[in-house]
């Protein structure tokens, strides 16, 4: 059964083809899916990690391809605890689009969301964006920064563990956000005044 103490929603954004799905699959399943092609029916992936003896469940959401024509639903950003903005270090246009993504994030995500900028594909020889450029951008916009390779599994574990640790720290400080298992959530709220909102599942 689920015996985790915290559940955090982490969402990924960034241009099509920067390796969002690969990062998620590498972290949750330890594999690098060869070839493109969206995985049909996959909504989010879950991985439970341990931070200082506590079990933390990360629910990692992918864009479902809606970024291809800039049609991500606003609701995708709602109630995300952390947001990973990904670009491809070997593809300038994916970096140039970052300000557009930031605008969308400001508009729809919570102002308190933990934001991380990730330059992916450092295994590639044809780098176009030097590390310091990414670093500076992240600093300017108050984001964490990390370069990764989903293919070589570089920094992927570190990325998600860092997020889990930071969110835990936040959660400890405010005593929230703490989730219990879903069914309980429903039972808790039935028949009595609840300040919490309901998830139906």
């Amino acid at each position, binding site marked *: 059964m689920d015996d985790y103490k915290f559940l955090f929603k982490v969402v990924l954004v960034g*241009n*099509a083809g920067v390796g969002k799905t690969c990062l998620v699959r590498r972290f949750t*399943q330890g594999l690098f*899916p060869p070839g493109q092609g*969206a*995985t*049909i*029916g*996959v*909504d*989010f*992936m*879950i991985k439970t990690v341990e931070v200082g003896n506590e079990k933390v469940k990360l629910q990692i959401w992918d864009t*479902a*391809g*809606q970024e*291809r*024509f*800039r*049609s991500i*639903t*606003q*609701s*995708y950003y*709602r*109630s995300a*605890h952390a947001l990973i903005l990904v670009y491809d270090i070997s593809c300038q*246009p994916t970096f140039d*689009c970052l300000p557009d993504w930031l605008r969308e994030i*400001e*508009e*729809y995500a*919570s*102002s*308190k969301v933990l934001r991380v900028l990730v330059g992916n594909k450092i295994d590639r020889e044809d780098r176009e964006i030097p590390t310091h450029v990414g670093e500076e951008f992240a600093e300017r916009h108050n984001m964490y920064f990390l370069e990764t390779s989903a293919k070589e599994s570089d920094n992927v574990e570190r990325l998600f563990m860092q997020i889990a640790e930071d969110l835990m720290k936040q959660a400890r400080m*405010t005593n*929230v*956000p*703490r*989730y219990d298992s879903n*069914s309980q959530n*429903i*039972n808790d*709220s*039935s*028949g*009595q*005044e*609840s*300040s*919490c*909102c*309901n*998830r*139906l*599942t």
Partner: protein
Amino acid sequence: MDNTLPTEFDIIIIGTGLVESIISAAASRIGKRVLHVDTNDYYGGTWASFNLKSLQEQGTKPNEKQFENERCLQIGNDVFSIQDFSEKWHIIEHNEKENVTQTPEDNEKQLVETFEDKVTIQDESKEAKPNVNETKENSFSRDSLLNNSRKFNIDLVPKLHFARGEFVQLLISSNIARYAEYRSVSRVLTWVNNTLEVVPCSRSDVFANNRVSVIEKRMLMKLLTSLDEDDDNYKDNQDKTFLEFLKEKKLTPNLIHFVLYAIARSTDTTSCSEGIASTKRFLNSLGRFGKTPFLFSMYGSGETTQAFCRLSAVFGGIFALDRAQVGLMIEDDKVTKVFCQGQEICAEHFVLGAEKIPKLYTEHLKVNSYISRAVFITESSVMPSEQEHLTLFMYPAENGKPIVTVLELGSLTGTCPKNLFLVHLTAKQTTTPQEDFKHIIDNLFQFNDQSTEDIRKPKILWSCYFSLPETNSSDLKGTNHPPNLFVADGPDLDLDYDLTIKKAKDIFKQIYPGDEFLPRAPDPEEIIFGGEENEKENVEVTDTLQKDTTSLNDNN
């Protein structure tokens, strides 16, 4: 970014209103190749939610641009879109005081702090109490509200969901519930003898209510229990009105009011069977979540269309918003292709939102009825209390005015900034929205800029009115539109989405008669990559789900 779309699909859906989005999800879910486009750069069409600035822009929006292409029929009409939009400020533009003492930058910072909302749900219990000691007179200005524009999610079509209604059941059975969060409505109010009263909904409510005498309490419980349990006893009452039926039960006028106007949302002429059905719909959904039978979608009703679109995308549906030039290409009385920004894209079936129907088909159409809508931003609740409420307020029909559904939303719903309320009024149009709601404003509200002041009434800081056509696609039957083109209706007056689901399901069944409508989507844990899905496991999970639902029913 590569902007070219693939050019072959099974079904193309134009418009992201709720009916279209449900069909999109359902088709994608059974493996159809779905292209879903919209000329707007936002989701939802006439069902959308807007932030404050974008809603204001609805009034000044030019009609869809014409484009030259003789080979196709441009989509879009003025008949089924939002009508007579008007909006007005009732507060000053800047707050002079603040500007004198602070630099603009500081000012903005402070305002952001004032409005800082806790989006994380669990934070909210602490934030729920409005600051009672706050005596900031008129601290709101247009600038301060506009600076927080994005904290507003203002619905064109606000809806509530019966906790055991068809919509909630569909959300659960299809697993779409995971895309959205809901808050329960915390009280139902009505207007009786020129005062606002809380409608006792549940058993505990009935007994806690001190405006209802002990005898009345027994009577009401008896009636509600008998309506809930008995099905056959009321067949003899078919010719009566619900009012006559209630009078025969010897209920006091007070109780009749609660049941007739608030619980059953009826009028004096509503038939007995209809009244009983509405009462039962209400009673059936009690005791599942919160104190009332209703849920409201966090961040506004516009989220619902997006939840269905997300499911569609997860199963491979391709989404492209903000496509300026879209047209239908017709050959031999059938739609064969969609023209989309220079591309020609083919499919077998086509679904159009009502407001996207080409003018050719709407020329001779008259809309039979409209929905009157008003939205106010106020600085206090119609019935202030210690904790923030999510209020449904049924204003009975009177003096030729329609029944008005009033929804008051606080910041906990994620639809407006802290210390403010969003008030939605909805009614079947009799004259104009302004006229249909005038008596309610007179009785319950005051405009912030009016000369006389009544401290008991909430002040309206900003107001907005518009009409929405109540579409009924059967009106289109005579217009010889192509048989493989399906029209998805726009908004209706029902409190919930029951009608909407039915309409979407009807169209889906016409297109794919043998297929299941929105079967349960698998949970992430069940997906095995590169292998077959384990059928047995699936079945087990469904079983547990059903068990859960039953146990919830037992809570009643």
